[in-house]
């Protein structure tokens, strides 16, 4: 009996220990996933979709290039430059602050083999400067091809729509030397650094 009592005491003690070790607890499990992605700062511009001209036409030559042709650069009776203009709209989008620049390679329409000078030689000239106007993101800028960068627009945020670009070739001045006149305009939308 004495022995049994000891066993009972021991058993009770064990029971208490078990109860103490396994007191009711409730644990909660939680997992976490952090997702992240970046929309990079980008500007996109496409070939013009529409053009309106006077004494000039526009043809899209690729997805990123086009050709403006002045129908009659000089009056056939006087060889004096005739007025010409053309407006083109280029679909564009920039999803961050950016700037738009228009640069002229020759700083004007230059006769092939000629010299880019406003000074006439023997009463004739072979260089025809013109003006460029661009509208984008609520801003309009006009400049002369002579500057090399006639248009520079800074946009403080993203913008989407169409860059409206107008080229105006003025009439008048000394008569033009016969030949083919050309220039290359580059319209660039660049993410602000």
């Amino acid at each position, binding site marked *: *009996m004495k*022995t*049994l009592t000891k*066993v*009972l005491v*021991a*058993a009770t003690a*064990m*029971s208490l220990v*078990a*109860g103490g070790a*396994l*007191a*009711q*607890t*409730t*644990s*909660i*499990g*939680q*997992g*976490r*996933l*952090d*997702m*992240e*992605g*970046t*929309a*990079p*700062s*980008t500007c*996109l511009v496409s070939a013009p979709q529409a053009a309106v001209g006077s004494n000039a036409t526009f043809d899209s030559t690729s997805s990123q290039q086009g050709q403006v042709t002045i129908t009659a650069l000089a009056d056939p009776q006087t060889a004096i430059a005739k007025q010409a203009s053309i407006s083109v709209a280029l679909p564009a*989008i920039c*999803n*961050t602050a950016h700037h738009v620049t228009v640069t002229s390679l020759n700083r004007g329409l230059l006769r092939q083999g000629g010299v880019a000078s406003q000074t006439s030689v023997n009463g004739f000239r072979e260089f025809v400067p013109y003006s460029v106007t661009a509208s984008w993101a609520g801003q309009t800028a006009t400049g002369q091809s002579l500057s090399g960068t006639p248009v520079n627009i800074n946009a403080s*945020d*993203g*913008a*989407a*729509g169409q860059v409206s670009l107008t080229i105006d070739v003025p009439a008048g001045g000394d008569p033009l030397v016969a030949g083919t006149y050309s220039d290359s305009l580059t319209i660039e939308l660049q993410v602000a650094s």
Partner: protein
Amino acid sequence: MRSGVVIVGLLTSLAAVGGARAATTGVVPMSVTANAPQVCAVQQPVLTQGALVNFQALDGTNLRIDRLADPATLTTAAASAAISFDAVCNYPHRIVLESQNNGLWRTTAGAPAPTGFADAVPYTAQLTWGTINNTLRADATARRLNTDSIPVGSPTAGKIVINLTIQAGDSNLHANAPLIAGIYGDTLRVTVEPQ
């Protein structure tokens, strides 16, 4: 439970010894009880093999989208991934899936997106846990907590699988709206807890 068996054996032995001396039998009823605690546990996320489209590898809890925007259009690029968490819950519980931002929102502070641009990307998180199937749509209509809570009537162990899907062109503005530049993010939490 094992301790209880030992004790019963000892009593039997003692009774036999007592019988030799006095031919009496002692019967002592004993009960041994123990409780298994209520446990819910969730492990770290892992990628499910072969289910990764336009996501990079998982780094801890971080899952990066490879290209959030299509570089040719700046619209949302499609992406999908399957993530699983080893988990156990030994009592009837509920599973809670929570999107902190209700979509992938720009994490960089700044002005609202300019006209014509989206600044959040919706996604869906389809959850499978035991017999439970549920889809949380983080629709990015507003930046807020978005929570789904589903009761689970029985203990469950296995994998919590979450299939993440971003639809091409989806945004908080309109279909195929361009995304304003920036870093977009959201935190998804899955919790198993008492009902």
